């Protein structure tokens, strides 16, 4: 568990980052940007999802920056598999556009959030830090999808993934366009509490979809008897 309070200002790199991006120019620049910060270090960079699946478990990274569109296995599937082995890993999706469908699928797969590829260095570093502190922002477009997802799932309730009334309230306010600050004011809660609520919403989203994904994954014969080939 990382500190959720003030960031420590130690000079030794404390956050280890891995990058999965097929475009060389971007991959190299991202490495440069990450390593340019005193608190972050890039421990490895991969060109494909397949290579990442092999290497990342040994990298002991905190955050992975994952391109959403990769040749071969895409970033969403790669995140799904990595999260099965390493539930503590924070995954940030890299995308050219804010394609809400793809982003939402990534969130279901276990991603903590997304980052536009054109983001400035400052935005990039901020996003990595936030992800590490378990602070995933949630836009109203995404919140709308999350609400719809839970409504859909509501019909086949499972206790672990059901939202509390408070979380439901926060989520619905997010979907109507309110900011974290506005929600905090409206519900007379601290900003920190709202962040925790969002974190739990994400966690339940993961748990729920992971349950589904795992069940699906286990049914595949190749997985049932690993190493039999």
């Amino acid at each position, binding site marked *: 568990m990382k500190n959720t309070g003030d960031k420590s200002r130690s000079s030794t790199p404390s956050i280890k980052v891995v990058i999965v991006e097929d*475009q060389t*120019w*971007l991959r190299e*620049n991202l490495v*440069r*940007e990450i390593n*340019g910060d005193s608190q972050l270090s890039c421990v490895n960079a991969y060109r494909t999802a397949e290579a990442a699946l092999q290497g990342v478990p040994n990298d002991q990274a905190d955050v992975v920056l994952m391109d959403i*569109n990769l040749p071969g296995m895409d970033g969403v599937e790669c995140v799904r598999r990595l999260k099965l082995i390493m539930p503590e890993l924070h995954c940030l999706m890299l995308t*050219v*556009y*804010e394609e*809400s469908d793809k982003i939402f699928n990534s969130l279901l797969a276990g991603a903590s959030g997304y980052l*536009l*590829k*054109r983001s*400035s*260095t400052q935005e990039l570093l901020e996003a990595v830090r936030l992800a590490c502190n378990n602070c995933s922002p949630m*836009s*109203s*477009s995404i919140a*709308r*999808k999350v*609400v*719809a997802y839970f*409504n859909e799932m509501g019909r086949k309730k499972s206790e672990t993934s059901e939202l509390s009334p408070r979380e439901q309230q926060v989520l619905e306010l997010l*979907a*109507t*366009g*309110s*900011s974290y600050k*506005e929600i905090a004011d409206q519900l007379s809660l601290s900003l920190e509490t709202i962040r925790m609520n969002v974190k739990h919403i994400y966690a339940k989203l993961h748990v729920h979809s992971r349950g589904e994904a795992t069940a699906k994954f286990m049914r595949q014969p190749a997985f049932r008897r690993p190493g039999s080939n």
Partner: protein
Amino acid sequence: MVLLTFVALTTPLSAHGAVLWSHPGTILVCNNGQGQDILHGAIKPRDTNSSGTLYFRIRVVPIADTAAKVIKFFEAGFMLVKDGQEHLGIGNARGALAYSALNVPKAPKGFQDLTSSNPDPPYTYEYMRAGIPRYIVFKVEYVPGQDARVTVWLNPDLSTGATEFNEPTNLVVHFEADATFDEFRLIHREYGGGWEFSQMVVGTSFEDMLLRHFWQEWWFFVVCGVALLAAVAGGTQLLERRRARVQIQRLEKERAVATERTRIAQDIHDEVGVSLTKISKLSDLMALDENTSEANAATRRMIVATASETIRAMDEIVWAINPRNDTLKEMADYLVYFAKDFLSSTLITCKLEVPLNLPDLPVATEVRHSIFMVVKEALNNAVKHAASREIRLGLEVTEGCISIVVADDGSGFSLDQAAGVGNGLENMQKRMGAIGGRVEFDTKLGQGTSVKFHVPFGEAKADS
């Protein structure tokens, strides 16, 4: 329709009088003495007290010709016989070279010869030639107590439309004769190898004598009718099939266009998006280079901003043309995303009143695009002119209508002032008009502005 045609085609036949008797076959008689009756009482006998008119037609073919003079005397003909006694005959009288009547004692010699349209000058008649068929038609007008008046045509025009009055006069012969009968007999006596008789008809009008071609026969009309029916049925089916094929082709084409549209959209999206991202990112990264001067910073920021704007604009275009987005849900999601994104760079808060569970309605590309454009325009006005702090985007679906509202809490304007914002408002009205929708402005100075768009969805309603 078929029935009508059938009736129309058969109608001319009913103009004929009554055929009293006909003999379908061909009979060759040769030296057969008195001959035999072929009437068998089929027609009421005519005696000296009879009145009325009968028409006769026979077709004759002499087996030998008279022109060669090798033939000695012979007689042949279609004979009217009464009580075993031969009366009027039509054929060849003994000693004649040409077609003639027989047993016409009151006619002066030679006057019973039939005149011909192909005479052998200096005569008005033609020699009988072997194997050359001739039609002979004669009319008998019975006069009670007297001989009948007889008119004979040798080889008249018997095609459809011919009448006894428009036949050439040079092939008509008139005389009077005893034409009573209770039997018809065909006779040929002595030389010449015989005569062939066929197509014999007795009727009550000249029209009955006319030659009916195969296309005038009843069975022909039946065949025609059936063929017509079949043709109409076949044609209809063919037409139906073609229509179905055209329909299928049209749908396939539409689908192909949609697929192509999606592909192009995706390509532009991916390719250009990546390039613009690269421009934006690389410009930004120039800041990391030590030897980049401060003076370049402004230019660099402009490049970044321009690239970002271009990416956003392209995202809009691509969203607009991608048919995958042709649903109310996708449209609502995009409006929400756009409004939030559009206002994110301002201090204005954005309130959303867009239902989460929208009905699954199809929204045509042009409708969707028009709605997007007017919402964008309304948001733009609210940001630029109204000095708002909060903007509300609402969407609601009522019976057959999508209503969208963009409301701000800004300065508002009186409608006389609207000229200032004029172009934008006019544009919105034009766009809504084009898709059958309408715009509603509600504004007062200092009380904010609310713009409502109403778009009917007739087609979608029928589906739901």
